[in-house]
């Protein structure tokens, strides 16, 4: 039943692994964000530790826009977008495929940039950092579940890139707030029981917007 979604996922991942366009652009862009932040906010190491979680998410979110924009704009070439709309399948399937590919690409990029982040900001590696995995996973899914559907909306416009940012950022602000708080808790080693309810909230956000987007995606494709 989910074969359409998996075909799209396979196609997207194959394209990405051949060209490495998105991941490379996202990675370099994040690197740039770290460098620019370093120049613009000359702060002591202690303050740096406090703002590090925010910086990490700024890098994720800004770079994530590349992946999201790419995801549907590449379908625009050769009229693929129309072909997708004509496919005799549930629109939700296409959403799931696109969502999975964007999420996987973004998670891989996060895994690649995180070591650089650790080195630049001289963070102490510890076992507790494994708790970052669910935090990044839940936060990224929230970002991409809304991002995928809004990217599909924005791709129909003349000014796709700016419009996606305008639509997406206010809507994902809860994810950013919660994820930055959670990441801060993990990095400072204060991963206490207090963060589980927070993680549940991020999870709830993911479920709500994934389901909603799945249901609404049909309307975006049709003409």
């Amino acid at each position, binding site marked *: 039943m989910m074969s359409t979604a998996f075909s799209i996922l396979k196609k997207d991942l194959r394209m990405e692994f051949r060209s490495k366009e998105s991941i490379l652009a996202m990675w370099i862009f994040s690197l740039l964000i770290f460098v620019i932040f370093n120049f613009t906010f000359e702060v002591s190491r202690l303050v740096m530790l406090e703002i590090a979680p925010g910086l990490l998410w700024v890098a994720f979110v800004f770079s994530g826009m590349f992946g999201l924009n790419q995801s549907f704009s590449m379908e625009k070439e050769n009229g693929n977008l129309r072909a997708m709309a004509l496919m005799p399948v549930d629109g939700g399937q296409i959403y799931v495929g696109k969502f999975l590919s964007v999420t996987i690409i973004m998670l891989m990029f996060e895994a690649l940039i995180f070591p650089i982040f650790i080195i630049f900001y001289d963070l102490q590696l510890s076992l507790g950092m494994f708790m970052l995995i669910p935090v990044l996973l839940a936060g990224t899914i929230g970002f991409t579940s809304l991002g995928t559907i809004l990217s599909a909306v924005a791709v129909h416009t*003349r000014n796709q890139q700016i419009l996606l940012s305008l639509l997406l950022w206010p809507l994902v*602000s809860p994810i950013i707030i919660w994820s930055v708080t959670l990441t801060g808790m993990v990095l400072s080693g204060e991963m206490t029981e207090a963060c589980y309810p927070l993680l549940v909230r991020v999870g709830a956000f993911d479920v709500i917007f994934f389901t909603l987007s799945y249901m609404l995606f049909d309307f975006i494709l049709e003409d």
Partner: protein
Amino acid sequence: MRSKIDKILLIILLIAFLVSIYLIFQWVPQIKASNPAEQIAQRIFYFHVPSAWLGFMAFFVVFCGSVAYLVTRDRKYELISVASAEIGVLFISLVLITGPIWAKPVWGIWWTWDVRLTSSLILWLIYVAFLMLRRYLPDGSKRANLSAVVGIIGFIDVPIVYYSIRWWETQHPKAVMASSEGSLAAPMFFAFMFSLATFTLLYVYLIRKRYQLLALEDTINKQFKEMEIL
């Protein structure tokens, strides 16, 4: 197009606004505050809160219109939700302007990243993006579908945004209606309700006018198209 209802509405509105201005600036007793600036600034409350209420109501109408459009595919609902989004943005802009005017003499600052202020700003940004999206799309069923989808997602996101921003310590005064110790005195309550009713009437009038205008544009566009075919 000009109906009798609109004319009557307009006359009622004019009178109601004059009355509410009288109530707000003359009739309502001065509040007891140590700071004289605060006593004057407090009266902005009668504009600020009704505007906020209308903003939320307008966005609720956008949501209902969007759902109704996707279910029925009736262009009428698309136009209603667009008209309502425009008016909602207008009223939330008023909230964002009147709020700092009040805050400066009372809190001593124009702006603080408190939950209500921040969430109002994000609310404003969501619906400005909604209107921008429509600007960037050519007219047609595609635009109607896309904006309806955004109208639905946006509205469902609003309470979540509010909830998430509550993480920051709130500096905003508690809702006077809800808290028991700070309930409004009778004349204030009356003036407030009168102002609220006036603003709601203004919303009704504006959305009627805006809807008629949009429908008129539609008719003209259709006639132009027909002429081109000929």
